[in-house]
């Protein structure tokens, strides 16, 4: 058996891959949170619940309508985004002039309601969702075994994150979004429909969460609490990366997934707390986050 730093390489790479997978979800979720917070000034606590809803929509599409994984990858984000439009238009849009706290409380309440509804309907035990046939199996690499689906999740998440980054940094729509994040009132005096931009942005952000939910369905069991478990870590990721920073949330998401994986190899007892320890250190030394602009 080969070893690296005295640890079996198999285990090391296995944990690194797990870390990358977790990081893929952290990145997708914190990216959506960052975009929403940047433009809407809302700390979207419902993000985890909408991630869970995305996974459930995939499960429902498969089991009630016979629509498989690839359809879900398209339809679940759209369905959740439409629900996001409803939330933004009817509830969030009333809070923009108030303190952050109100948005946080409202979306926290929403998260509880959404989770409660799914729990009533589906119970807490969790439902299985099979890996799609096209992505079943795996490859034996020289240093480890790579399940195809896990490789796909990492690649898909990276691709979606980078596309989103390009959309925001390199397109006209992205320029509106960046400008409105800085000074919405002024952008509005140019004749830009900023309220519409806010709606679209919220829908897009929660659509990303739903996409992450569909990607997660074959890996974790589909359960009403899956969002609540991950969202706490994702908030820590967002705080570490810097609230509102796009590239920051992507890099920090993947990076912290890896750090978590490595900790599992070198100091397993610390693996569940390492992210929060890093958060505390970052808050103490660089309160705006690693990539945040301090104001």
């Amino acid at each position, binding site marked *: 058996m080969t070893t690296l730093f005295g640890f079996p390489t198999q285990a090391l790479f296995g944990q690194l891959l797990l870390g990358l997978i977790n990081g893929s979800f952290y990145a997708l979720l914190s990216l959506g949170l960052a975009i929403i917070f940047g433009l809407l000034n809302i700390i979207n606590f419902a993000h985890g619940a909408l991630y869970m809803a995305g996974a459930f929509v995939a499960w429902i599409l498969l089991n009630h309508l016979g629509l498989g994984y690839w359809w879900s990858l398209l339809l679940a984000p759209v369905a959740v985004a439409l629900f996001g439009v409803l939330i933004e238009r009817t509830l969030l849009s009333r809070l923009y002039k108030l303190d952050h706290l109100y948005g946080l409380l409202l979306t926290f309440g929403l998260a509880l309601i959404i989770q409660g509804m799914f729990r009533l309907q589906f119970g807490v035990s969790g439902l299985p969702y099979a890996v799609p046939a096209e992505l079943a199996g795996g490859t034996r690499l020289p240093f480890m075994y790579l399940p195809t689906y896990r490789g796909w999740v990492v690649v898909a998440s990276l691709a979606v994150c980078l596309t989103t980054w390009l959309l925001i940094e390199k397109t*006209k729509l992205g*320029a*509106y979004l*960046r*400008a409105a*994040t*800085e*000074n919405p*009132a*002024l*952008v*509005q*005096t*140019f*004749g*830009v*429909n*900023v309220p519409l931009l806010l709606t679209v942005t919220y829908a897009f952000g929660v659509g990303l969460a739903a996409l992450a939910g569909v990607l997660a369905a074959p890996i974790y069991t589909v359960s009403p609490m899956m969002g609540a478990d991950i969202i706490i870590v994702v908030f820590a990721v967002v705080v570490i990366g810097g609230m509102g920073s796009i590239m920051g949330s992507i890099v920090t998401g993947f990076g912290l997934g890896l750090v978590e994986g490595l900790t599992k190899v070198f100091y397993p007892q610390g693996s569940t707390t390492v992210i929060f320890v890093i958060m505390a250190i970052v808050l103490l030394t660089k309160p705006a986050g690693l990539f945040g602009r301090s104001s």
Partner: protein
Amino acid sequence: MGDPAASVSPAGTAAPLLAVDRLEGWYGESHVLHGMAFDVREGEVVTLLGRNGAGKTTTLKAIVGMLEKRRGSVVFEGVETIGLPSRKIARRGLGYVPEERGVFASLNVYENLMLPPVVRPGGMSLEAIYQLFPNLKERSTSQGTKLSGGEQQMLAIARILRTGAKLILLDEPTEGLAPVIVQQIGETIRRLKADGYTIVLVEQNFRFAQTVADRHVVIELGRVVDEIPNEALEANLEKLHAYLGV
């Protein structure tokens, strides 16, 4: 009080491009505009003069719809805009260059320039803008806020010229800038006037205002207290010094 009749055009018939009347404005509970009233005719350059805190910026914000709590009447091209959201006011052909310039840090110079949507045909082409402000072309890939103060002011004006807006509201474009730059901005304003733009210019520096304006509206504590045609400015210097406290 000055003689408002002196400022009415000889014909006096054509409806003004912009008519502000009984305009009241608030920041929260604090009542800042108290029945502002003045007209701007097409092709005119009108300045709003007044001391710090007189309400010049607030008047512009109320006209463009940025001041949420406002009442009274603002008629632009015959259409009442007091109840419209600012994006709809802008779409009618009104361009606003804020006092703080509002250049976006997360956009490069080119993106800043292209940001405001075209609201009417007949705006300046990018080439014409680059001819007027060559620096903006040279620095098109720099971060917007990395420009010098003068260049940022040029950028803030240039991006509005692209949109086809026919009425431009300029809030203290010369504030804090070097004399050469002030001169360049003066030339730009005269050039725009020659091209048929209508301009409302907020100024503290009436010596500069004198070189570009047709008429001066003097504001004190959120009210118009006087209107002075540019030709009469020299004759009214003492009065003006008293208004401006200089």
